[in-house]
């Protein structure tokens, strides 16, 4: 029962466990009768994700988005791309199954490519990745690109800060902080010049009835049938949605709750 079903077969990973071995592609959708889950990768060595807390997608890297790249060029039918990073490293496979978007140019603008795996790239270095699908249109002009994480790669506990990425789901098991090593180690990914991090994989609930840590202090009591949003005051918490904002609604409250730091029953509506 706790092992969700993918196509005809149960996943080897229960909803209530995480592993260091990747069993599915990131973002894989599985379901139990009335709930939906997505397979996610966690790479944070400092902040663990407790069970029943909100999890957000990786924050876009400032030096990897809206980057003007004079050396960039793609030709129709190319099956790999190379971009010059800004002054921030790219972790090994940080953008695996993520995307490269051509944001500004003359020809070929707007194209978006899904990326395969890639190596660690130093700050301001050149990142080369193979593509799942060949380039459609040869580009020209001044190229500006953005790298986009897979929605379920490098997820983190939602932050006690202004929103910086969409909510990805709710952790059904605790994701322990990731182990690190100072030398290359099997099963670890290079995340800095002399740091390798062991990823954790597991399920995030994205649809259906869930128990989610509730921040009452910053907004108001929950109201059954009203929207639920993301707390920007307490990490990992949801709160009652306020109508004068346009932030993401993550679901609908199933009950009235007036207690701080209790767990709210939410009908999640993040990804069906």
């Amino acid at each position, binding site marked *: 029962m706790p092992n969700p079903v993918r196509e005809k077969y149960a996943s080897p990973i229960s909803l209530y466990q995480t592993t260091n071995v990747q069993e599915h592609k990131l973002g894989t959708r599985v379901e139990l009768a009335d709930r939906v889950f997505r397979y996610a990768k966690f790479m944070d060595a400092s902040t663990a994700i407790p069970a029943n807390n909100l999890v957000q997608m990786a924050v876009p890297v400032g030096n990897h988005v809206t980057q003007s790249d004079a050396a960039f060029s793609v030709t129709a039918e190319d099956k790999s791309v190379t971009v010059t990073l800004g002054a921030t490293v790219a972790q090994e496979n940080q953008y695996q199954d993520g995307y490269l978007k051509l944001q500004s140019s003359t020809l070929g603008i707007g194209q978006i490519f899904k990326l395969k795996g890639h190596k660690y790239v130093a700050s301001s270095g050149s990142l080369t990745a193979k593509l799942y699908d060949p380039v459609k249109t040869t580009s020209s002009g001044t190229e500006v690109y953005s790298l986009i994480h897979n929605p379920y790669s490098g997820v983190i506990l939602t932050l006690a800060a202004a929103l910086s990425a969409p909510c990805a789901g709710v952790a059904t098991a605790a994701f322990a902080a990731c182990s690190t090593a100072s030398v290359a180690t099997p099963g670890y990914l290079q995340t800095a010049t002399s740091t390798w991090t062991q990823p954790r994989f597991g399920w995030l609930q994205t649809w259906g009835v869930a128990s989610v840590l509730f921040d009452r202090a910053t907004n108001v009591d929950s109201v*059954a049938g009203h929207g639920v949003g993301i707390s920007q005051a307490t990490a990992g918490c949801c709160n009652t949605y306020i109508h004068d904002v346009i932030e993401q609604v993550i679901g609908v409250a199933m009950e*009235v709750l007036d207690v701080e730091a209790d767990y709210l029953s939410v009908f999640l509506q993040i990804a069906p």
Partner: protein
Amino acid sequence: MANPIVGKYASPTSIFETSNIQQHEIGTRGILADRSFRYAKYMVTSAMGPNKLVQMCPPVVEHVNENSDPWVAGAYSVYFKPASALDIQENEYDGGYIKLQAGTDGIGQIRKLRPHPFKVTNVATTLEIWDPVTTTTTGSEASTLIHNPWGNVVVHPTATTAPAAGVTMVNWPACATTTGTSATAPLGYLTTAFSTPNYTYVQPQFGWLQTWGVCSVWKDASTIVAGHSFIASGTTAGKIAVAVQTEIKQRIGECLDAFATDAVYATVFLKIAP
């Protein structure tokens, strides 16, 4: 055509009929090419007309945030004690959930519930769960029972008390009821209450609620505009109304046409559950 597909096969129940015999697990998803449906249980002794907005079962106050014994890691059952004034109906929470809402360790855990018998008011009981408890709990534990989203659905009231569950495609007749002195209900009925010396039994109705795609839904007098969102009506049970900017009520879908007449049926692209 009217029998939605569940897995590889057509359901034996059409979207235009209800039945006293349960054919699928509550909440089962059935699809037709461009519309989605969920299999629901109805336990109310008055009818629910076609093309009405339906709400999930409201939380029962006496079953929310009640004192609980510790949950033990590995256990397949947990303790619950309903507060005075309300029993737990037979299978009221079958396919629903129990959530550990307050405590010290293990707080936040939620587990899906198995079928259960009628539980008498204010008597401690155990409920069986599908998956074992992960973390042994400590502190002053309190638990909450949560209905399956499509279990014991009701016509959407004017004051919202739970999320929307879907839209009826057909008239759901009033559920039959009877009484007797045995705690075990007659075949096909569920025990719902006890008042010395009699138990009350209700015969459930099962059928499909539409939850996604083009749908006809009863609306109130608000003027609708194509492309605008709908919410539940605050004036008439079972109706929908045009959403207003200052409301944070659940959006149930978008309007496909434009008119202002009261009590007619709007064309809605439903977006309750895909």
